[in-house]
C-alpha cells in the first residue's frame, strides 16, 4: 500500500506539472465553452413545437447543435485522452532506466502498474468532471432551467460510464507501453487500435453482414423481411465489438430518457413500436438503466480485462528486459 500511494502521489505531481496536462486543460476549456455556447443557441430550435419541454438540462449534453453533441464528441475523441495519458507510462521509465531502480525498492512490483493505472483514472475523472461542470455552469443561464434530481443522477451515471470507457483506452495504451520499448511505437499502436474500432468496425460490420446475409436485389417478390432482419442483427452484433458503439449506445439511452431501446427501428418488435408511438413520456431512470445494464456490465468487463492483461504482461516480463 505504501508503494502504491507514494508512486501515485509522484505520478499525480508529474501529470499536473506536465505540459501535456496544460494542453489537455486548454482542450477541456475550449470544448466546454464551444459545446455550451453551440448547444445553448441550438437548444431553442430543438424544443420548438414541443408544448411543454421536459428534461431541458440533459439536452445540453445530447443536443447536436450545428456539428456534434458533447456525448458524441466524448465517444469519439475521449479515447484520445486515455491514450495521451497512458502511452508512455511504463516505457518512459524503461528508457530513462528508472524502472530497474523502482523494482529494487522494497515495494511490490504490481504497485507500480496499479499506481500508474490509478493515476490515469484519477486524471480522467478530474478532466471529465471539470468539462461537465463547465458545460453545466455555462448552460444553466443559457437554458434557464435548474436540473432536477433525476437529471443529476443520469449525469452522474453518464460520468461514471465515461470514466470507465476512457479508462479502457488508458488500459490499452498502458498495455502497449508495457509491450513496446519505444514510446512512439506504443503511441502509434494505440492510435491504430482507436482508428480500427472507430472507423473500420462500423464499415466492416456492414460488409460482413452483407456477406453473410445478402439482402439482394429488389426482385419480383420484394425483399425477404427475414433476411433484412438477419442482416441488421448481424451488423448490430459485429459493431458491438467496438467499445465505442457499446459506450455510445449505453450513454445515449442514459442521457436521453425518451429513448426506450438501444436497437434500431428495423429490429424493434411490434409491441415496442406501438409503445414508442403511443407513450411519449420519458422513461424513469431505473428503466433506462435496465435497458443498458448489459452494455454497462460489458464496459466494466472489458476495462477490467484490459487492465488484467496489462498487469499479467507486466508481472511476467523478465526483469532483464526491464
Amino acid at each position: 500500500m505504501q508503494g502504491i500511494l507514494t508512486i501515485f502521489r509522484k505520478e499525480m505531481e508529474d501529470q499536473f506539472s506536465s505540459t501535456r496536462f496544460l494542453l489537455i486543460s486548454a482542450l477541456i476549456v475550449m470544448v466546454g465553452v464551444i459545446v455550451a455556447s453551440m448547444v445553448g443557441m441550438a437548444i431553442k430550435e430543438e424544443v420548438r413545437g414541443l408544448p411543454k419541454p421536459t428534461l431541458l438540462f440533459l439536452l445540453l449534453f445530447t443536443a447536436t447543435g450545428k456539428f456534434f453533441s458533447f456525448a458524441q464528441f466524448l465517444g469519439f475523441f475521449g479515447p484520445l485522452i486515455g491514450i495521451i495519458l497512458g502511452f508512455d507510462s511504463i516505457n518512459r521509465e524503461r528508457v530513462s532506466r528508472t524502472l530497474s531502480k523502482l523494482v529494487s525498492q522494497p515495494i511490490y512490483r504490481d504497485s507500480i502498474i496499479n499506481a500508474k493505472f490509478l493515476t490515469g483514472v484519477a486524471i480522467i475523472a478530474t478532466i471529465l468532471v471539470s468539462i461537465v461542470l463547465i458545460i453545466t455552469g455555462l448552460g444553466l443561464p443559457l437554458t434557464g432551467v435548474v436540473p432536477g434530481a433525476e437529471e443529476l443522477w443520469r449525469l452522474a451515471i453518464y460520468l461514471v460510464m465515461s470514466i470507465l470507457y476512457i479508462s479502457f483506452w488508458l488500459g490499452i495504451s498502458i498495455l502497449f507501453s508495457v509491450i513496446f520499448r519505444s514510446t512512439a511505437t506504443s503511441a502509434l499502436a494505440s492510435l491504430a487500435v482507436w482508428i480500427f474500432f472507430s472507423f473500420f468496425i462500423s464499415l466492416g460490420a456492414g460488409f460482413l453482414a452483407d456477406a453473410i446475409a445478402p439482402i439482394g436485389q429488389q426482385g419480383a417478390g420484394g425483399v425477404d423481411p427475414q433476411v433484412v432482419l438477419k442482416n441488421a442483427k448481424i451488423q448490430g452484433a459485429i459493431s458491438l465489438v467496438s467499445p465505442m458503439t457499446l459506450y455510445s449506445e449505453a450513454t445515449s439511452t442514459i442521457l436521453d430518457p425518451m429513448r426506450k431501446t438501444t436497437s434500431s427501428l428495423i429490429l424493434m418488435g411490434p409491441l415496442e413500436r406501438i409503445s414508442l408511438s403511443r407513450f411519449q413520456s420519458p422513461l424513469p431512470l431505473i428503466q433506462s438503466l435496465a435497458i443498458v445494464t448489459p452494455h454497462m456490465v460489458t464496459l466494466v468487463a472489458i476495462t477490467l480485462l484490459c487492465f488484467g492483461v496489462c498487469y499479467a504482461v507486466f508481472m511476467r516480463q523478465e526483469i532483464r528486459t526491464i
Partner: protein
Amino acid sequence: METPWIIETEELTKRYDGFTAVDHLTLQIREGEIFGFLGPNGAGKTTTLLMFLGLTEPSGGKVRVCGFDPARDPLRVKGSVGYLPENVGFYDDMTARENLRYVARLNGIPDSVSSKKIDDLLRLVGLTEEATKKEEATKKVGTYSKGMRQRLGIAEVLVKEPKLVFLDEPTIGLDPDGTNRMLDLIRSLSKEKKITVFFSSHLLEQVQRICDRVGIMIKGNLVAVGPIQELAKNKLGVDKEHYTLEEIYMKYFKEV
C-alpha cells in the same frame, strides 16, 4: 567469533531456456567486506545480482541474503539491500533532492526523517559543497554530468541505510579523478559505515585496489574465490612479489 555471512548461496543455478547463465554457484560473503566480483561480459554477474535481489527466480539451489530468501521474501531483502545498476537512471526533470526523497518515500521513510539524511548524503558524495557555495543538489538531474549521476546513484543507494550494497560497474565512464573519489567513497562505506560492498566490475586494477576478496566468474561458473594474495600464490607461484590481478585473471581465463 567469526563475522557472520551476509550472503550465502548453495548450488545456485539459473537457466534461460537451454542456456545456463549461472551454474551451481556456491559463495559466501562476510559482513563488512568489500567483495570484488569479476568476469567477462555475459559471464552471469548481473544475473547473479538479480537473483540476490529477488528480481529473478533461481532455477535451482539456495540463496540467503541478510538472512532472508530473496525469492520468498523479496521486500525484506530489498529493504536492507541497495542496488546501483550499471547506467543508473533518474527522473531528469526532478532535482537530486527530489529524486532522493522519492526513493526515501518508497522505502517508507517519512520526509521529516529523510530530509536531514538526504543533506548528509549529498554532502558525503560531494553534491553540496558549502565551501565553494556550489549547490548542485537544487539543479535538475537532467543537467548532470556522468560523474555526478554516479555519485547521486551512490547517495540514492544509501538512503535506505542498507546493510549490503551491490554496485554494478560504478566507475565506468568516470574520469580518473572521479574514479579515485568513487573508490575512496566505496572504501569509506565499508570501513566507516560497516556496509558490505559487493563490487561487480571488469576493471581489474580498481578491484585490486579496494577489494578484500574477489570471485572470478567465467561462463556461469565461479572458477576462483578468495583474497587476491591467496589467488596469486595459487596461480603465479609463492615467490612472485609484484603481481597484478590482471595476470591472475588472464591465467584463469585461459584455463577455461
